[in-house]
């Protein structure tokens, strides 16, 4: 990946995105995340009846004076949010002009930066058939440069195996958090099992689906030899306008199917064009509620 990917201009855009995110979500608490765990935080969450063995310090004596029953005050436990970026680096991400991996890297970098600014824990996993590079538990803003270095060292991997990646990810990450999966979701074995697996383990999931214009509307016609970027299989085909129309229909169906699946499984979904500016995609992601609780 070229060194200019994260140049000064890019860094300025990151600051801009961070400021915009703060403006958009003004009033929201950005430094800490309310977890559903009830614990020792200072934010009141609920009451419950006293049971023997409970900590006396949490008994609400005022309520006892009023109702003559023992109630415990429950507080929400505050903890840092873990954000996991699953970046697809399979050969299919390198097809197109520009390759989809370029906006993917920028999006990851931008969102990671915003996450670091929010004091979240940022984890980045570069994957294809498996996770082959990871950067874990980045928390300080200054670690964004480590992230840059990791992203710049990304190389094409093997076949896309989403389910295997999900399994590997889950085995390595027990602590729940937010999973942002950036990919084209081209897997011969399907994406459904992988996403469901992550959801099953109570991870919040957000899919950023990148497509290139050439995939949406192929411009080639005539006799061609179709080469699969991942399997390297060839297939001769004569492209006609009718065939292209059928392909576009199939492709749109494929995208719609993915979106419907995400909606049905409470998974965030954002489809982005590889030629669009990455900041537009990031802003769209913010509007979809990404990184906002």
């Amino acid at each position, binding site marked *: 990946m070229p060194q200019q990917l994260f140049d000064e201009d890019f860094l300025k855009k990151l600051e801009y995105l961070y400021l915009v995110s703060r403006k958009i979500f003004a009033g929201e608490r950005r430094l800490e995340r309310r977890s559903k765990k009830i614990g020792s935080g200072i934010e009141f969450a609920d009451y419950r009846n006293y049971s023997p063995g409970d900590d006396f310090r949490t008994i609400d004596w005022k309520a006892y004076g009023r109702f003559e029953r023992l109630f415990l005050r429950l507080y929400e436990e505050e903890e840092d949010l873990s954000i996991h970026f699953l970046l697809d680096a399979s050969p299919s991400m390198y*097809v197109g002009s520009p390759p989809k991996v370029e906006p993917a890297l920028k999006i990851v970098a931008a969102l990671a930066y915003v996450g670091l600014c929010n004091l979240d824990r940022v984890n980045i996993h570069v994957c294809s058939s498996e996770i082959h590079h990871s950067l874990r538990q980045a928390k300080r803003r200054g670690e964004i440069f480590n992230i840059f270095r990791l992203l710049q060292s990304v190389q094409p991997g093997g076949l896309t195996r989403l389910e295997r990646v999900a399994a590997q990810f889950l085995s390595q990450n027990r602590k729940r958090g937010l999973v942002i999966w950036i990919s084209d979701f081209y897997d011969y074995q399907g994406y459904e099992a992988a996403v469901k697996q992550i959801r099953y383990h109570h991870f919040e999931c957000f899919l950023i689906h990148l497509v290139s214009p050439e995939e949406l509307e192929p411009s080639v016609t005539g006799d061609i030899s179709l080469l699969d970027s991942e399997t390297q299989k060839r*297939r001769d085909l004569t492209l006609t306008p009718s065939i292209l129309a059928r392909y576009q229909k199939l492709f749109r169906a494929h995208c719609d199917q993915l979106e419907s699946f995400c909606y049905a499984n409470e998974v965030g979904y954002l489809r982005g064009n590889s030629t669009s500016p990455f900041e537009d995609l990031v802003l769209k992601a913010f509007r979809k509620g990404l990184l906002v609780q």
Partner: protein
Amino acid sequence: MNFTNLSPALFWSALLPLAAAVIILYILKLRRRTYVVPFSPLWEQLFRQKETTDLFKRLRQWLSLALQLLFLTLLMLAWARPTIQTFKDPPYLILAVDVSASMSAPEGEGDRTRLELALQEAGARVEQMADGQRMLLLAAGNPPRVLVPFTDEKATLRQALRELQPGESDIDWKATVKLVRALCDSERGDQIVFLSDRTRVKARPLGEEFPDALFLAFGRPLDNVAIVDFNARRNFAHPADFQILARIRNFGREKTSGTLRIRKNGQLLEVADWTLGPSEEAPFSFKNSSLASDLLVAEVECAEAFRKDNHAFAVLPEKRKIHALLVTEANNLFLEAALRVNSHFEVTRLPPASYNPAAVHHDLVLFNGCALEPGERGIYLYLGPEQSSPWWTLGHAISNPIVSDWDEKHPLLRWVAFKDVNFFADPSTHARVRSILLTPKDLALARCFEDVLLALREEEKRTLLCASFRVEETDLPLRIAFPIFLANLGSLALGHPPGAQTHYPLNEWIELPADEGDPAVTDPSGQPVAVLSSQGKKYFQARERGLYASMAGGKTHPYAFNAFYPEEYDLAAGAEETPSPEASKVVSSPTGGSAPWKIAVIFFLLASTAEWWAYHRRITV
């Protein structure tokens, strides 16, 4: 199967590489561009939908190749002009190629001549000879020649065709018909093919004799101006001068202007401008007193393509007087005065008794009423010999003699008319007019029906003439024919021995002076010409017009040769204009822009280029 334009080997050696090129281009065209896609299963779904049409698609691709190859084959066949050899093909073919002067006319805008087109056709016919077929190659000219007798050896025929050159003369139809008749065996089914610029109509003698012959005519109408006659002679009115005569004819269909130039020994002598309408002819006459023993060249300059007939040549005779000896009993004013009035003649009169043949050194000796022994050389004219002699035998007396016919073409009688010559009605005179009995050596120049009145005998060194009447007993001296006859006689005297004639026709054997050793003859380009010897005499023959020279004993004799064949110069009525009867065919130049095979080639190239260019850019397949 044989081919008209190509040999079978050439046809296949051209077709196969071209077909290979088409196939290579087709394979190259089938090389598909690689299109990388990130995820092929989406496309696989399309393949499953399109699977049923693949067979047709493949078939369509092969059909495209098959059509291209078919088109290429048809194109090659159109070029090669195939002919199917059947059992009906004649086993013997007489191929007569016209080599007359008109065949050297240029054809079209290229440098090709009509003969080259004819030779191309002849070559194609040689190549398409079937096994067992024999061909005879005949050059139809003057004289006609058999180049190759019946043979099946194509190499020999090809070689003969390569060496064939156009002549400058016409076609000797009589000899050609006679030769073809002798060669053709109609019972054997011989076929005659005549390649010429003449259609059957124009080649009538051959067409009438051989109605089944195939006439292939080449050539397009061409405007032409030619010198149809040229001569130089002494001016009879002014004997010291020479008179140059020329005649130009416009054979074209449009009015044409030009210039006639006469050059003497390379120097410009006379110039005359002319303008001639279609088929018009103009005579030119120039008088000049400075001419003697000069080489004259006449040139016509005008805008035309065929210039071979624009030159004529002449060698002026030596300028000297004719020494004439008149042997007569008494004064013969009619004859002597007629001779003396011509300043060319230096006349000496002798009585017969004083005549001594050994002492004769004159150019011309006239015996009036006597038949004495001639000398060893010179011209001897016997006028009204009263009795037979060793030289002339007289027959019966002719009653009421008239001159019924005479040989107008003989140089001695050129421009001489004996019509209505009266013989005096004196019975005694009539009795003197007797028939001359000819020997095989003699030639009758004038007749009274069956009886010979004027006879000619040419011997080795002398010429004997005998008129069976005396001129003073006729009204001939009062007629214009008489001085002309005497002038012709003088010209004949000056033209004796050979070499003094102003010009000669082509293809005639010219006798060289015998007393000058071994002469060497050169043609206009300086190349030596073969000299043949026969019975102690030496001869040579000119095949092209121009100035020849014989050199012997330190002396050089120039000879001028001309070819005046108006029929050959009439190129305006080309083959295309003449309606072709059946079995005739007009063949135009293949260099013409309207040749179908050329259009087909251009179409093929354009279509292939367009198809190749559009293939990778097409929107639909």
